[in-house]
């Protein structure tokens, strides 16, 4: 079946502009995660949605970052007034909670370059 998809695959933007990154999770997956990977670094957790619960936003690096998940499916990560340090690959993952265990399925990511 279809996996997690993300769009765009690449985005180049000028410093100060806003960007929106989209994630389409696997149908039926209740959990959705956003991560960021900067060059040479590990994955950085950004935000987590689980069902109808309030999202865990503890990883968002600043108030310029926000995310929504509409109808429990598609999610949009918005970065306002982009800065050069926002340049990274943004990864989305979804998972299905099954009897206390799950696997995360990752999308291909969006490479964001802020010039």
């Amino acid at each position, binding site marked *: 079946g279809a996996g997690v998809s993300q769009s765009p695959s690449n985005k180049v933007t000028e410093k100060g502009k806003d960007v929106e990154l989209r994630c389409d999770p696997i149908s039926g997956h209740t*959990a959705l995660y956003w991560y960021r*990977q900067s060059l040479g670094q*590990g994955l950085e957790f950004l935000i*987590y949605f689980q*069902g109808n619960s309030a999202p*865990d936003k*503890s990883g968002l690096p600043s108030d310029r970052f926000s995310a929504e998940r509409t109808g429990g499916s598609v999610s949009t990560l918005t970065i306002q007034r982009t800065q050069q340090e926002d340049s990274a690959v943004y990864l989305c993952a979804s998972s299905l909670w099954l009897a206390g*265990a799950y*696997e995360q399925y990752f999308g*291909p990511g969006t490479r964001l370059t802020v010039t």
Partner: protein
Amino acid sequence: EDKVVQSPLSLVVHEGDTVTLNCSYEVTNFRSLLWYKQEKKAPTFLFMLTSSGIEKKSGRLSSILDKKELSSILNITATQTGDSAIYLCAVEARKAAGNKLTFGGGTRVLVKP
């Protein structure tokens, strides 16, 4: 604050060698530990470990969790150049808002022919 530390940061081996990667963690409300292989952008899932002392195996890769020592190792035997990648360890913990993954910084493995 939850913490996951991987070691070594990087290593270079030759084909046929065996590598052992380490992951240690400090989290509250531990649920599971996961290993991923990342070659390009998106990590691919390798193992999920929830019970201490039970080895999981897939081909030349194996992993085991030690809950007492708060650590896990990932072994790769008879390495091949295709094993070159960043290996990520992540720990799932139960939080008020749900379950959260904390990733280590990864171990970069380079297998030379």
